[in-house]
């Protein structure tokens, strides 16, 4: 079970459940408020005004109205959460355990870092599973575009993956936790707002672009290699 050490660390902490409950409450409220906005919007187009032609107004499609905004909201949550999660990966206790593991088994530094990266992504994965209840609720009233949802979920997981790999070099460099969170936050917010946010717009609307997906993977790999070098040099030089 050594492989899931990070998992056990976090899933056995009450703080995780408290934060997850807060996330779900916020996410639920966002969904609810979007639903209210949608019903308000529909009241602007009663049937007797536009007749059957109201259906031609594609911008009032519930799937296009609700889910992109909900996933945009998730992306902001990820931007705030990833720096904190990634910065905690290099803390003293984990570092000592990693050191022991590296000396005792055939595990390489790169696989250890990838494991840490996947751990950050899987936290979001676990957090997003309960959010499937929203489309299920919606499917009671109207057909849900599951393809659009799939692409949005792919988008948020890729975003978490990319931002986590961006934060891991600083997270593993064993500097003060607060400084590390601060540096990562600055890095993530600046890069997200000015470079990455527009990349994900297509995902929210159901389109998975090959170039963007490749870019995310390559970009993340580059940071992984960089993180590995930092990790190796930290271990060698203390």
């Amino acid at each position: 079970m050594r492989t899931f050490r990070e998992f056990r660390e976090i899933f056995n902490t009450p703080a995780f459940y408290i934060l997850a409950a807060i996330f779900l409450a916020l996410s639920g409220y966002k969904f609810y408020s979007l639903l209210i906005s949608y019903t308000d919007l529909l009241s602007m187009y009663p049937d007797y005004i536009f007749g059957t032609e109201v259906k031609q107004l594609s911008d009032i499609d519930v799937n296009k109205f609700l889910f992109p905004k909900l996933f945009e909201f998730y992306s902001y949550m990820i931007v705030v959460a990833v720096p904190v999660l990634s910065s905690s990966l290099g803390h003293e206790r984990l570092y000592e355990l990693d050191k022991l593991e590296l000396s005792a088994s055939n595990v390489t530094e790169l696989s250890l870092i990838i494991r840490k990266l996947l751990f950050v992504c899987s936290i979001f994965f676990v957090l997003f599973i309960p959010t499937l209840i929203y489309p299920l609720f919606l499917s009671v009233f109207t057909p849900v575009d599951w393809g659009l949802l799939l692409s949005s979920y792919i988008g948020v997981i890729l975003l978490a993956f990319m931002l986590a790999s961006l934060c891991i070099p600083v997270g593993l460099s064993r500097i003060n936790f607060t400084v590390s969170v601060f540096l990562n936050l600055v890095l993530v917010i600046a890069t997200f707002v000015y470079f990455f946010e527009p990349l994900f717009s297509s995902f929210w609307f159901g389109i998975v672009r090959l170039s963007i997906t490749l870019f995310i993977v390559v970009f993340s790999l580059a940071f992984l290699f960089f993180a590995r070098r930092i990790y190796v040099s930290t271990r060698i030089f203390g």
Partner: protein
Amino acid sequence: MKRILLMLFYLLGLFLFISIFITPEYRYRIILAFVLYLVCLFLVLKYTSKNEIISFYRSIFGARFKNLLPGIIVFILIVTASFVLLNIKQLKTTKLDLTNKGSISVSSSSAKYLEQLNKDVEVIYVRPVNKEDNRSYFIALMEELRDYSNHVSYRTLHPIINTLEYSRLKNKVSSLVPGNFVILSGENYLVGERLGEKEIVRSISRVVNGDIVVCYAKGNGEPDLNDFSEKGGAIMYSMLSDRGIILYPVMSGDWNKCPVLFFADPSIDIKEDEINKLIEYKGMLVLFGGVELASFKKFLSKKGISILGKQKMSFKDYALRDYEGGVVLDTFYDHPLLDGVKGGVVTAYGYSVDCKDCRPLAGTSDALMYLGKDGLVLFAGEKTSTNFFMRFNGNLRLIYNALFFSFAPEAYMSFTEDKSDGPGLFAISPRYLNIILWVCVVGFPLLFLLFGVYCFKKSKSLKLK
């Protein structure tokens, strides 16, 4: 206390760093402030946690730098390669549309037009300040359009963050408001209200081809294009010219030289010879209002259109419940002339019309008021074009579409071939909304919390054992 002060200091740094990007007008000053801040930060950290800082700098630039160097080189190479990847055309256009109806995919007619586009155009979305921001939708849509043409570029603009740029644009395009988009091509520009594939592509085609000049019949009591009073037509003139349609006032002697002739709410009868001129007129005649005048009634009857009773005020329109007076158009037929007509069309009063070989376009729930026929578009509502009634967004769209499509009817025909089924609409009762609120916001997170308590207790008891 020390930690709190340090935290506040870090937050100040974060604020300054973000300000560098979000306030381009003050960038140099903020960069200077940020450099000063970094010096202060260095000094603060040096005296608070000296050893940590030194070890951190050594970790980067010290002996281990040699060890890091290959990693940095590989990293730079990979990042460069990934940026190149983003710009390879074949990769750029390869995508997977997972939606049921391809809701954001570009129609074949638009794609065809964009592939033939040979002029550079820039689409700028002015982000709304108080209203709903559709930035993501705009970006996703523009990315789709860019798949078909390298001549299309886009960006978004925030009226507060990019104040100077916004005011420069506003000086050029006076009727621009946040939430609109502007299309620039050389010296030409055009404003659009509703974000959508067809709307943007049409606007691009308009801006590339330059302004349309429409003859505006004058001398029969039409609103004056320079008059800003409630009865004037200055707002219509200004809004249409920002959208690429220039109204050019003409007297009856020049009617036959015009490809499109627009009558907006005439209040004085035209003469007998002018009626004949209109009958013989070969271009496209757009008649808004004036149908209560005997001369126009006569002209219309010769065209096979009869004017029936006066329309009563309609108050049942929910969207305009606060508005007192006026006839509200509430029935819209499926026609490109009505694309983007949103928020209702309101007129002071109107007449129902009847025509056997006309194409019905719109009306009130019990009468037809707007129709099309070869060489003629007729709207039987009165005062639609005056400054007072131009405040209703639908009125501008109605006039704009009527003039735009009249000038080049073949243009709109080419954009109508793709038709989607439209979204499924639904309504949720307040009771269900309450249930959703309680389940999603309270019940579900609480359940997760209880699950956490259970997991935590279990792991604790295992540890104790």
